[in-house]
């Protein structure tokens, strides 16, 4: 039964290909994590919208394949389904960080990087009674004595929360030796990190904005910088790092990759489908309501942007000794 459906799906895809542009059918979305996490959310939300907007004919099937921070799904797709044009896999900055640090079985070129549809924005914050008034205060303090203010976030050493903070310090002129000595503590999420900061156990938190927005609203914390191109629409009072003269953006984007051996037609077809989804009113509303900023990068442009991001992460990771 399943086999039959699959072959007919392949046959259908073949017919479509020979006719004109590629149209995905019987789409499966792999969320490389357990239900409930960010990647699961990406698959389920986008999958639902693809069907609701009639960009695909059948409901999108979501498969959870947890393990190795996405490495299990990555190796599974590379080994068994490298030319399946009806498969998309959810990924994000977290996945790219793993690749940059050599923790996936293969490099970027094993997959085709499809698009990002939105992003959570990095943020640096302190307690509202902290002596650090601006981003510059903090970064200068780090340059004088990297051990002065313990920082925390939801990733481990060398994870994206950590690296984003170091990118700021580096841009402000800190040396490799200095950024290496900034103390970093990992918590189970941005919320726990902020409560630990409120309890006085750490001084600074660097994490995604979406998780900690509640503390900004309540006034318990002072935001030193948001790491986006422009100020956030919902919080126009919060300054960006850029406007304070530290030219770094730190998005935690949500997007997809395709298996590495799909045809150019399929790749282009998928990029068109995703662009249509991105442009829809529904996605724009959904993204904002989930605390994401809608940002589009797709196709070749996305691929080269991912390469650039990965190279920068690799550089920082080497400098702080996470990889050799």
């Amino acid at each position, binding site marked *: 039964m399943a086999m039959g459906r699959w072959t007919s799906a392949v046959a259908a895809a073949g017919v479509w290909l020979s006719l004109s542009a590629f149209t995905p059918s019987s789409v499966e979305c792999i969320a490389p994590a357990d239900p*409930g996490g960010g990647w699961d*959310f990406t698959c389920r939300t986008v999958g639902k919208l693809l069907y609701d907007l009639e960009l695909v004919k059948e409901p999108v099937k979501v498969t959870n394949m947890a393990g190795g921070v996405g490495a*299990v799904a990555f190796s599974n797709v590379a080994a068994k389904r490298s030319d399946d044009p009806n498969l998309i896999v959810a990924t994000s900055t977290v996945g790219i960080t793993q690749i940059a640090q050599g923790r996936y079985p293969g490099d970027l070129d094993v997959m085709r990087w499809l698009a990002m549809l939105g992003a959570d924005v990095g943020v640096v914050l302190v307690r509202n009674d902290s002596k650090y008034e601006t981003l510059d205060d903090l970064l200068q303090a780090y340059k004088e004595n990297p051990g002065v203010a313990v920082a925390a976030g939801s990733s*481990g*050493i*060398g994870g994206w929360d950590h690296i984003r903070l170091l990118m700021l310090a580096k841009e402000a002129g800190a040396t490799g030796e200095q950024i290496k000595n900034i103390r970093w503590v990992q918590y189970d999420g941005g919320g726990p990190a902020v*409560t630990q900061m409120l309890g006085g156990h750490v001084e600074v938190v660097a994490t995604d904005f979406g998780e900690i927005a*509640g503390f900004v609203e309540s006034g318990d914390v002072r935001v030193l910088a948001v790491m986006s191109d422009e100020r956030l629409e919902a919080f126009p009072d919060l300054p960006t790092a850029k406007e304070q003269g530290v030219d770094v953006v730190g998005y935690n984007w949500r997007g997809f990759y395709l298996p590495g051996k799909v045809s150019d037609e399929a790749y282009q077809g998928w990029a068109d489908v995703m662009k249509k989804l991105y442009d829809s009113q529904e996605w724009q509303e959904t993204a904002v309501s989930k605390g994401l900023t809608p940002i589009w990068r797709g196709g070749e442009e996305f691929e080269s942007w991912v390469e650039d991001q990965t190279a920068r992460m690799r550089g920082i990771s080497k400098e702080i000794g996470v990889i050799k």
Partner: protein
Amino acid sequence: MDTLNALFYGFGVALQPLHLALGFFGAFIGTLVGALPGIGPVNGVAILIPLAFSLQLSPTAALILLSSVYYGTMYGGRISSILLNIPGDEPAVMTTLDGYPMARSGRAASALAVSGVASFVGGTLATVGLTLFAPILARAAIHFGPAEYFALYVLAFATIGGITGANPAKTLLAAMIGLAIGTVGLDPATGIPRFTFDSYHLYDGVDFIVAIVGLFAISEFLIFLERPAGTHQPRVEIGSMRGAYRDVRRSFGAMLRNSVVGFIAGVLPGAGASLGSFLAYVFERRISNRNDTFGKGDPRGVAAPEAGNNAAAGGALVPMLTLGVPGSGTTAVMLAMLITLNITPGPLLFEKQAELVWGLIAALYLANVVLVILNLPLVGIFTRLLALPYWLLMPIVVMASFVGVYSISHSPFDLYMMIGFGVFGYVLRKLEISLVPVVLGLLLGEAMEFNLRRALSISNGDWTYLVSSPIANTIYVATAVLLAIAVAMALRRERTPH
């Protein structure tokens, strides 16, 4: 008086027909999910999130559904612990210690009734605590940093030796094995793989549920296979409801005491129901085990962990609702759902989402009543399970284990792991090493290591940081006193001739 008004308003929300129906449905599903080996509370709640979305429930309705499931799993987990010696989920591990011996000695009905009432008492007292003290408690809990958490886990490990009546050396050995298994996976501070043998499947470490199902359910099956064909297990008495009533009365004090213990463990973010039920059992054993009845089927040994884990589940909602910080793995999943429903969890939730918060709290009172009403009459049906012949029961258990584990992860690797743990559990049983400390080592060890590493990151490797806080030092003193009492009691027991 404000609180009372708000609660009154909350009952208005919770008693809407839709919310009432969802609460009832959630409580029922939760009991089932908790009873099935392989699907713990985290996954049970996660599985229902798509349902909440597809029914287009309001955030209040969705949260009422999921919280009822959460409370329900705490009730359900005990059933297979008591009847089969197979914990349905992590917090029910401690219930096997006295629950299963009670069932073996013909008091299954009593054990189920005691644990049902204990769950009700724990759940309800925790909800009262949540109603009255949530904001104050949340502000107090933030003073618990890595050093204080580490001290708390030291206390837990120092008392592990006392949880089984058997050879303390073997108990310690078992806990060490659990700790060792817990080191598999990515190093929590640096992300460097440990003992993963280049397999990406091991990067996330060993899944607790897979380990528990393997150790308990699969090894039970292997023990069963050993028996020569045609042997009949002796028929087990179920026990009368009158005996049950007596046991409930006798263990009522234990329920009250350990609701408090469990609630406190739940309020601390990141500690959760497993620590709650563990501390409750240890605490009760310390103060009540005068005639050495614990571990042999003492109803108070059933009441304590069940009151503890249900109270902890309620306690875990305190940091979730007041700070937007998960108190346990399950509340973490519920928080993620709130965010996707466009509710910003955080310190302002009580003010900005009064309907949601107070509706939920009222719904929890109702869910507890529903659960106890649902569970007590079911005692009779559940105990019939014991009348089933083993050759029928064991294959069903194994099938449920395989389906449960696979349905969550879709990973054949997890099934191999489960079988591996089954064989390992079989060997340990043959060596008369208790399985419970192994699981505790695994469950608590990970959190303990995380907090130790955090503390050392903060202090840049300075170990004195661990003893620089008054709260932590108070816990260490309490640990020392407990250990001293245990040693003194052991010495005295040796001196008095039997």
